[in-house]
């Protein structure tokens, strides 16, 4: 069965037809060509497809596109670009926290969401927060360091605003 859905993706309103069983992941990758969101397992175990759905980090492979009517979705493409990176992206580059890069977009999305509500996380907090995003290359240490570093940057930025 086909559904027409209207939602906002990275701030842009999109109206498309989707099948009942089309996942948000398929919709983003195949219909919108937002391929920064990766498929690693298609069963919610690896976190490579993490996006923000109404501000919450979700595995896009476990969400049906048809359920996203009126929703606001943010993908890695909505987080930052050359010259205007998010502090999490900047920190990941600074800490050499990317290797193959396949988990990186999902990892960034999880970290961005987590730091919104947790401005002063401990090392253990970050390790726990990222534990749903698998990475086979880095051993996580530099990613955790990057997220802790980004937390500091965000605190400084928010502090200077207030």
């Amino acid at each position: 069965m086909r559904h027409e859905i209207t939602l906002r993706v990275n701030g842009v309103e999109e109206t498309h037809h989707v099948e009942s069983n089309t996942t948000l992941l398929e919709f983003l990758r195949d219909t919108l060509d937002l391929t920064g969101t990766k498929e690693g397992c298609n069963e919610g175990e690896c976190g490579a497809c993490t996006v923000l759905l109404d501000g919450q980090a979700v595995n896009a492979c476990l969400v049906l596109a048809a359920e996203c009517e009126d929703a606001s979705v943010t993908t890695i493409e909505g987080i930052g670009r050359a010259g205007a990176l998010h502090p999490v992206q900047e920190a990941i580059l600074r800490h050499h926290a990317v290797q193959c890069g396949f988990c990186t977009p999902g990892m960034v999305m999880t970290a961005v969401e987590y730091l919104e509500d947790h401005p002063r996380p401990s090392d253990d907090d970050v390790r726990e927060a990222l534990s749903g995003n698998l990475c086979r290359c880095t051993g996580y240490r530099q990613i955790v360091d990057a997220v802790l570093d980004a937390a500091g940057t965000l605190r400084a930025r928010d502090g200077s605003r207030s």
Partner: protein
Amino acid sequence: MSGVVGTPVPRVDGLDKVTGAARYAADLKFPRLLHAEVVRSPLPHARVLSVSYARALQVPGVRAAASGADFPFHTGIYLKDQTVFATDRVRMVGDPVAAVAADTPEAAREAAQLVDVEYEPLPPVFDVLAGMAPDAPLVHPELGRYECVPWINPRAGTNVANHLKVRKGDYDGALASAAHVFENTFEVPQVQHVPMENHVSVARADLAGRVEVHTSAQSPFTVRHLLCACFKLPHSDVRVVVPNVGGGFGGKAGINLEPIAVALAMRANGRPVRVSVDRSEEFYATVVRQGLRATLTTGVDRNGKVVAQRMEYLWNCGAYGGYGVNVVRAAGYTCGGAYEFPNVRGDSIGVYTNRPVGSAYRGFGMQEIHWALEQQMDCVARELGMDPVEFRLLNCLGPGKKTVTGQVLDAGSGRVDLCIGRVAEATGLRGRRAEGPGRTGALPKSVKGVGMACAVKAPAMPNNASSSVHMKFCDDADLELAISGIDYGQGLMTVAAQFAAEALGLPVSKIRVRGQPDTNLSPYDWQTVASRQTWATGNAALKAAADVRRQLFAMASEALGVPPDELTLRDVAVWHEPSGRSIALPLLVLGYQFPDGHTIGGPVAAAATFVPEGLLFLDPDTAQSAKPVAKWTFGAQALEITVDTETGRIAIDRAVACYDVGKVVNPGLIEGQTFGGIVQGLGTGMMEELMLSTQTGRVVNASLMDYKIPTSADIPTRMEASFVETPQKDGPMGARGIGEHTMIPTPAALANALYDALGIRIRDLPITAEKVLRELKAKRERDAGTGKAV
């Protein structure tokens, strides 16, 4: 900008990856793409009586189908024992039997269900010992008829896919004279690479007969070579393109899904066909790491010097030889690990079974043999009442010492003794409880332990494996450096940029590494395996840069009227320092035009190659060779652990690694390699095992839910990496490989730390909490029997 090599330059591909701009094979869009579904064997061993896809072709939207009768072509890199699709026999659950391609994945799936295959089940064999039994079912009855490279030694009429014998000195005589003899058996199960990106390949065969393949692979030129050998095509008609690759670890070496995609594409009237595996198939239908059963016998003299060493490595190759047969060989000529054993009998034997296909996996057999060797060294030292650190230092290799193949290591081979010393000092391991834990009374809930292990590995590659690079300039003097080594995370593009920047006095920002090779356009490279790229491509990049420099100086010399040897490169210009004059590079890179209009030179460009010198084949009967491999990288790791004696759970408090890498090219990248290797090593050390039902032959934990890999919550509380820099003679600025070595010693170090903590030894990977509790219980019972409380 000299001084770039050795600094933590950020990854040159980092921006692409953090923004999601980096495209991987599954991200590529192809108009009119067909989706493939592979029909795979549900049985571990069976005769294939018939295959018919007639019904499948009736499904609306199905455009092509293929089976073994259509493409009875052999694949296989060293031993041609595998076909694109099964022909007369299937040898594992998941063996491809046929495939269909359709407009939609749904139609392809439906059609695949309608492929009729008739099987006659045959008795399977899953275990190496059973596979070596005289009456074992033969996985490859036609083994004697397969094409094979001369340095792989399959035994017709058996399940032995390869056997390398190492014979050095007089083992029997030395064993007879030994003061003490120790024998132990250690086992390693099959595990999987678990790259975050599953395998995917897209192929198109156009109406002019040319084939184009876009694939997640480590070795585009070897993919091309093997596809051409398989389908009998000229190399120039096959184009292989590799975009970003989401992890490989050896699992994307050689060909995997590409032949299936090409076979379907050849029947699809020019439409592109995508073949991919889901996460479940990734576990059993691509490739895995081989299992190992290792039996070691060590004879020592009164001073603790090893005089005789026997190593029997039995490898569970699974259904096909693939890279596995070369793992068997590499494990043979490295059978003694980081030690000098004067009298050696080594047998490394690969055995076919009806399991998933064993292949290359980060370390290429070395983590598996070190699991055995490094525990054996610990066992022997403890039994002798010696400090395991001192025992290692007494017996380890080093300059002037002889390997198991009789190679005398030179001064540029690296220093494992320094690595041992460094991790032992850092962890207080030296001199610690040399006699082993002598606890009495009730065990506390938390018990700490420290253990270490060494590592060594050489590149396992043909003696003539080469790399090459191309260099040219854009108009604005940005330098384009084309390479065909694949940067699937290890940092090759960044390292190559650093070497070029260093040699040309350019900032790294002026170097653009074209690192996603297209075999139609890119320079030749054998493969991205064997921790060989920094060394091989690095050397080629330095050579090309020297050529570019020479060309720039020749023009500038004429333009400025000064001798070329008075010129330097800095700040994106050629300078004549004595006169303070310079020419900006954009005025030179496409040729220099004089004020009167006449022009000299032309676009500056260079090509350069690297092939290692002086490598010699192994003696076929004894594996002796004065230089069997290009280089060795040595190292050591120590782990500090806390064991919960109630749950059996082990927490890793600290991991300390030290490797002699010749030259640290980029501290940030090498730290990432080290930490990544340690954690991947802890995965195989504590969690990972491909579980197979011997009833059905199926892998029962083929999902990330059931096959756990380490998460960020599982990593050591602290990880430290340090490096010794003994320059490699033929290394670029002295550098040698490190990518694989970082996961080699970890499981053995963990086992040794567990022994240090509790006096229990686990000989079969992985070290799970259940096994810890089981061994603790067994030890309690043993100690109760001897009156010693634990």
